[in-house]
């Protein structure tokens, strides 16, 4: 029996009504609206406080459009998704736009463009086959492709600021950092590899004193691919990302093997690698020295971290207010020290809010992993969540002098298109995975 046009239209409206009335969808809309209000208020306050033109509101307009389109497409494509991932990612990104408009107004247009690109990538993931087979099946292809891109960066890489490590590939006015893409590809590779070998890794293990470790046959290929990634990153002096890879790898290995000894051994190796890096790289030695005792060199080597701590202190509980603090005293505040800027202008409460938003994404991501039925999904969700968590913790702890500075960005918030695009892809994958589990249920 054929359906008439009127019946189809009626069916469409019914679906739409259903979408709008679903509690999950309502919750997501409410969160997006609250986030949007916060971002709008910040931008208006910034305009008034810094005597800016009202045309500088346009990033908020783009943000609102992205939120509306994103929510609408997700409702259709992933109706059973986790309702917190998208609003929290958009909330943090919008806050980041506020921050970049305040700190480096000239970069706000580029970051807004990256938001659009990031959202497009996120939504594109929802169109691809839902079982993510394309990612799992061609793991070597993806990873080698990512490494090749990294290799190209070694030869043709550039730095948008003209000085410093050449970690970017330039496309006109846009620059992309391939190591960001490698984060996802490496996690996908590890998830795929470990998912295929997980039962054997747990069963076929070797005794090493009191501890058992997986057989070398299982670990060999993965260690090789991971090692190549690390070597390339170290070659590029991208030591922050190398550290991130190392920690994520160790945690995923622990998740797959269930061997806590591996994790402890990995931590030991990390310390050894750090000591070796101190001998090999002056910058590592400098950062460790500055971390241990920044005060004697507060006006030279430790200027950045000391100013960062002063910014946090200056923010107090409630902050100075957007546009009212002095975070621009900190060199490259918009990328490495975005968190210090937030602490100064939004206070301890603002800093805790950012941290809580990131923590909630991580916890929800881990929950997706726990609820996933397939090992690949579990490991992918966990790997992506751990990547987001470790990257956040590395930069937060670095800014607060808990660990040496590593130079990674604060997810969603810091200036940087590559980082933002990567985080939107991570969010997209988590959304797909969360939707699959609910679908299956």
């Amino acid at each position: 029996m054929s359906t008439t046009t009127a019946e189809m239209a009626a069916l469409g409206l019914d679906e739409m009504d259903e979408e709008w009335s679903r509690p999950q969808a309502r919750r997501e809309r409410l969160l997006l609206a609250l986030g949007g209000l916060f971002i709008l208020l910040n931008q208006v306050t910034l305009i008034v406080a810094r005597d800016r033109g009202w045309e500088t509101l346009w990033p908020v307009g783009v943000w609102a459009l992205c939120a509306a389109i994103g929510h609408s497409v997700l409702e259709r494509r992933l109706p059973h998704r986790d309702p917190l991932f998208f609003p929290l990612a958009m909330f943090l990104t919008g806050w980041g736009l506020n921050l970049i408009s305040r700190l480096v107004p000239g970069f706000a247009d580029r970051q807004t463009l990256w938001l659009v690109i990031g959202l497009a990538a996120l939504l594109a993931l929802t169109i691809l086959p839902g079982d993510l087979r394309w990612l799992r099946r061609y793991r070597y292809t993806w990873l080698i492709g990512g490494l090749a891109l990294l290799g190209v960066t070694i030869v043709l890489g550039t730095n948008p600021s003209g000085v410093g490590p050449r970690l970017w590939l330039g496309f006109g006015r846009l620059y992309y950092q391939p190591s960001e893409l490698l984060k996802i590809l490496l996690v996908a590779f590890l998830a795929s590899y470990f998912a295929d070998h997980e039962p054997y890794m747990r069963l076929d293990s070797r005794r090493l004193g009191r501890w058992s470790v997986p057989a070398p046959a299982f670990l060999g290929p993965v260690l090789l691919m991971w090692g190549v990634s690390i070597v390339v990153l170290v070659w590029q002096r991208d030591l922050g990302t190398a550290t991130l890879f190392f920690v994520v790898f160790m945690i995923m290995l622990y998740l797959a093997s269930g061997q806590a000894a591996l994790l402890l051994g990995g931590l030991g190796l990390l310390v050894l690698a750090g000591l070796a890096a101190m001998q090999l790289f002056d910058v590592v030695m400098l950062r460790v020295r500055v971390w241990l005792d920044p005060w004697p060199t507060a006006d030279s080597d430790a200027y950045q971290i000391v100013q960062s701590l002063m910014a946090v202190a200056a923010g107090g509980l409630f902050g100075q207010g957007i546009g009212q603090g002095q975070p621009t005293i900190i060199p490259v505040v918009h990328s490495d020290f975005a968190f210090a800027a937030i602490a100064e202008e939004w206070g301890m409460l603002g800093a805790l809010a950012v941290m809580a938003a990131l923590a909630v994404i991580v916890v929800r991501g881990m929950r997706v992993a726990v609820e996933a039925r397939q090992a690949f999904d579990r490991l992918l969700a966990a790997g992506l969540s751990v990547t987001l968590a470790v990257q956040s913790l590395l930069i937060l702890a670095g800014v607060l002098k808990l660990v040496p500075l590593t130079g990674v960005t604060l997810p969603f918030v810091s200036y940087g298109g590559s980082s933002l695009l990567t985080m939107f892809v991570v969010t997209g994958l988590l959304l797909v995975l969360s939707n699959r589990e609910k679908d299956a249920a």
Partner: protein
Amino acid sequence: MTAELNRVTRVLLLAFGIIALAIGYWVVVEGGRLLAREDNARNVIAEQRILRGTIYDRDGEPLAYSRTTALGLAERVYPYPEAAGATGYYSFKYGTSGIEEAFNSVLRGDGTPAWDAFVNRTLHRPQEGGDVRSTIDLDVQQAIVTAMGGRAGAAVVAHVPSGQVLGMVSLPGYDPNTLDADWERLTVDATTSPLLNRVTTGLYQPGGALQTVMLAAILGSYSNLSEEAGFVLNTELPQAHVPVRVNGLELGCLPGTPGDPLTLAEAYAYGCPGPFAAALGERVSPERLWERFDVLGLLRAPELAGFRTLAPPAIEPLGTGMSAEDLLAAATGQGALTVTPLHMLQIVAAIANQGNGIPLHVVDALRPPGADDWEPVEIPMHYPAILRMDVAEVVRLTMLQAAAQSPNVRAAQRGELVLYGHTGISYAGPGARPYSWFLGFVDQTLGDTPAAIAVVVVLEGETDPAVAAHVAGDALAAAAGPPS
């Protein structure tokens, strides 16, 4: 794997919890220490944003004010750099001097009520300072600068008996608008010392200018001046012209002195040191002269309300046990005693004010930020007498006679003003540059209340005392109108 996932989640949450504690640590525990650090640029920026209050001259002309630059920082502007001798300077880098220093807390707005300060801080308004009304008369200030014509030295003019300082010039000076840029040059030249306020802190040999003090001491040794003053002043003195040799210097009468015989009044008018040197030990004991120095305030820092002044270096008290050479040096103002122009101004003012000192001050009213009305600065109404009234009166008449007789003093005469004056030369030592002094006042008495404009000028490297008198004359003419 679920157990491992839960374990990892717990560890990650614990790590986030540690981050939260770290934020609290830097905000709550270490916040105060971090914010108070000298290298905290936020303090520097807050300081640079302070809109200091305006310094006005006595007629409401702004001598210094602050404005906000495009960067949001405050900039201090001095529309009349020639007033720098009084206003001083404000520099974020190099600090303050003059009125800027003396009334720094008012100009910065440090006394802003706690609630207003809190509101300002919350709304990120820059701290606003209060205004200061000086007693400086811009016309007087400019007249002095013009008359000095770039000569090094100092000049100070004050109203008697109010003690209001009308003009205060120290040269070579500086332009406070370009102080930061000029600092190197201003500080490198120790001989000219442009940043030294010579009025309040410039120590000079009094030399011939001490003859007024000696004259007062001699007159003070007579108990009944109404009977004896004529005799003391008008008796012809043998050898009045004879130069005095002291510390390798030969001190004589000023150029233009008539021939013998001279009276004490004439010797005073022409700056002859002989009779005054001879009086020490004969008419005035060293101990008595020392006591006079003390009463006249020459042994301590001169008083100028709110200002940092300089006490002369401590010297050995005069006494009969001292060598004749030292006593001679002390009597001629070529000894260890050094004075500032402000010291001498107080003595001149007392002569014009029946022996009473005056409360010297440069600021007479303050206005809190945002207020319309001025609040007067508390100034002591009466100052103790530093000279006997009859002594002051006789010295005054002697200065009037000097103005009539001495061509050097007469150089200060302007129009119909009734001038009282005395000139003198002093030397920092053999071969050193001489200083040319003028001390005097013009009478402005109306009825029974004495009133005058007093002036002290000292010029460095100037051997002609008429030049100092000329500067004084221009200053007195500019200030001649009664102060409001």
